[in-house]
């Protein structure tokens, strides 16, 4: 048998198959294979007044008709009397990676004359998903893979006024950022010039800071120096100013997604025009797993602790859990 240097000193080969040294990094390959086989789940919620382009943006993000409006052919443009929560799921696949994408739409939010407490049904929906997961998790005979309907990310659409956040925006984000990852975006950003956009963003960041609102990526959840460096750069850029479109146009010989106007064509994926590409990269290409991890290991755990404490008040004191954690889920 032939010999080649290796950690064992020899590379052995038997008849046909090579049984040479296998390193423990082979475990990673097994994990990847398992992950690919199982597929992934992602649940995104979109919140914002009607007309801000939420459905279009979802379609643009996933380059398919995944939004509520695309699916329900008879969807009316009427504003509902109360806030509705509508979930649409799709199985999508790319390069062998399968994903179950659920888009949760919230028509009616912020559209009424009196919008007091309009965050309540949304808060309840989010907590209901945590509850469903908890129930399955503590079951005596539980499923091998607990179906995950928890909201991983809530994209909040800010109207492009150019001035500052509205009281509704502040109120909503302040409450919801405690239970879910919020990603604020400036909708229909093609209304703003670059200067107006930068000014608006700075103003928004100031107001978020002033109100103690922690949007994704939250500073306190940075895992290490590498993460912090990347996330700091992101925190300096949010909220992303986005434009959505599912129409393609011919630009310089290429077919691109965009909006065609008399004064030019806005290319959605061109970072000189808008920040859609950054949003897409953040949500999908680089931070998707992290978004899910924060949801399951932080937001869900906080819900669980509160829920378990409700049943056993003795525990709260023995555990010494800080009070503000318990208050987070109150509406």
């Amino acid at each position, binding site marked *: 048998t032939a010999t080649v240097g290796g950690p*064992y*000193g*020899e590379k*052995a080969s*038997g008849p046909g*198959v*090579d*049984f040479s040294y*296998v*390193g*423990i*990094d*082979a*475990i*990673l390959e*097994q*994990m*990847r*294979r398992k*992950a690919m*086989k199982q597929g*992934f789940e992602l649940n995104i919620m979109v919140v914002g007044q009607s007309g801000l382009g939420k459905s279009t943006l979802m379609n643009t*993000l*996933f*380059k398919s008709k995944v939004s509520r409006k695309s699916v329900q052919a008879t969807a009316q443009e009427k504003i509902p009397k109360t806030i509705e929560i509508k979930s649409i799921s799709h199985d*999508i696949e*790319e*390069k062998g*990676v399968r*994903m179950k994408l659920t888009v949760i739409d919230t028509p009616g939010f912020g559209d009424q004359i009196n919008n007091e407490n309009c965050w309540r049904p949304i808060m309840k929906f989010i907590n209901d998903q945590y509850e469903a997961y908890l*129930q399955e998790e*503590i*079951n*005596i005979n539980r499923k*091998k893979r607990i179906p995950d309907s928890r909201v991983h990310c809530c994209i909040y659409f800010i109207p492009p006024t150019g001035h500052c956040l509205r009281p509704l925006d502040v109120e909503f984000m302040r409450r919801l950022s405690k239970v879910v990852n919020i990603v604020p975006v400036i909708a229909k950003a093609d209304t703003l010039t670059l200067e107006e956009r930068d000014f608006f963003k700075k103003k928004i960041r100031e107001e978020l800071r002033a109100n103690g609102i922690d949007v994704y990526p939250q500073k306190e959840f940075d*895992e290490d120096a590498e993460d912090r460096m*990347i996330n700091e*750069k*992101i925190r300096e850029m949010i909220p992303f100013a986005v434009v959505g479109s599912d129409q393609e146009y011919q630009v310089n010989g290429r077919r691109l997604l965009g909006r065609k106007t008399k004064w030019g064509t806005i290319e959605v994926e061109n970072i000189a025009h808008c920040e859609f590409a950054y949003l*897409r*990269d*953040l949500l*999908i*290409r*680089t931070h*998707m*797993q*992290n978004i899910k991890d924060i949801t399951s*290991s932080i937001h869900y*755990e906080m819900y669980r*602790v509160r*829920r*378990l*404490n409700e*049943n*056993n008040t*003795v*525990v709260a004191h023995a*555990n010494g*859990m800080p009070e503000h954690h318990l208050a987070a889920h109150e509406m």
Partner: protein
Amino acid sequence: IFHLIRYSTQGQFPNPETPGYVGFANLPNQVHRKSVKKGFEFTLMVVGESGLGKSTLINSLFLTDLYPERVIPGAAEKIERTVQIEASTVEIEERGVKLRLTVVDTPGYGDAINSQDCFSTIISYIDDQFERYLHDESGLNRRHIVDNRVHCCFYFISPLGHGLKPLDVQFMKAIHNKVNVVPVIAKADTLTLRESERLKRRILDEIDEHGIKIYHLPDAESDEDEDFKEQTRILKASIPFAVVGSNQQIEAKGKKVRGRLYPWGVVEVENLEHNDFLKLRIMLITHMQDLQEVTQDLHYENFRSDRLKRGGRLSSHGYILPLSPAYVLVCQLSSLHLPPPQRTNLCLDTHRVTKQHRNATVGHNGRHICYSSETEPKHPELRRWKLSY
């Protein structure tokens, strides 16, 4: 910066500007990156009579010395000896991947003249790890749960007999529903090739006959390459593995090999024609993930549902564990009868559990149960947990 992040992650990445390309195909790479950061934990138990070469084999498998200060007791000391449980942990790192391997040794197994009860200690240990995990998983602070559950048990069979001994059968039947059992024929250089094949067949027949459930390697997936499929076939056909272990370098045929020097030749540990050592090693590494999964999804879940149905009862060595908050919730939701209130304070993370155990609790028979362990060892050196029962 997204450009940087994207290309710093591994894996083939098609041109992102391909029309219609969304990019969630990068998800497995994100998961991969997280796994590398986290590292892996694996617990391997070895069971077999003294002198079957268990320690040598374990050292050979991972090219380490887990037992530097070892003292082998004489026959007189062995008479009264009960089975001990000794866990040793070592951290191995290769190509940036960290593995925290715990080997649980069971000296004293099968040594006593009357080995009637020699495995109840082992079963208790396995159950205790499940119990501990269940307790941690049901607790309030779940950020740092340590998984000490036994993922795999190598059971060493003597090559001197004609198959399984009654103790072998009894033991494997007692644990096959709690842990993945991998039978191993020890000191296989006692056997000729023909004898080895005959013994393997005999053992497999007896395993069948007695309804023993050993760990089954999953078949290769249809999308794997041919080499991997062939390798899996060869591995499956070689069970139980007949192995020889050694940490000595011998000069043979002009090169240094690990082996055993006899007047009639050299047995090479890493020679596939001499024994199944390499196959065992490859089986363990390439199925580490699956072994953990089966432990989690099958053995642990069985334990958990039994345990929850039984109620907040004693663990097998008589120590009453406090009710976890999640358990209380389960009872309420499924209208199970709650057990009577517990004596001890509720303790919620493993640190506190350790302290309270040492101070406040004495189990049955006046024996102290002390886990002198703590969280992750900071240095890649050996740590010993000694559990005395």
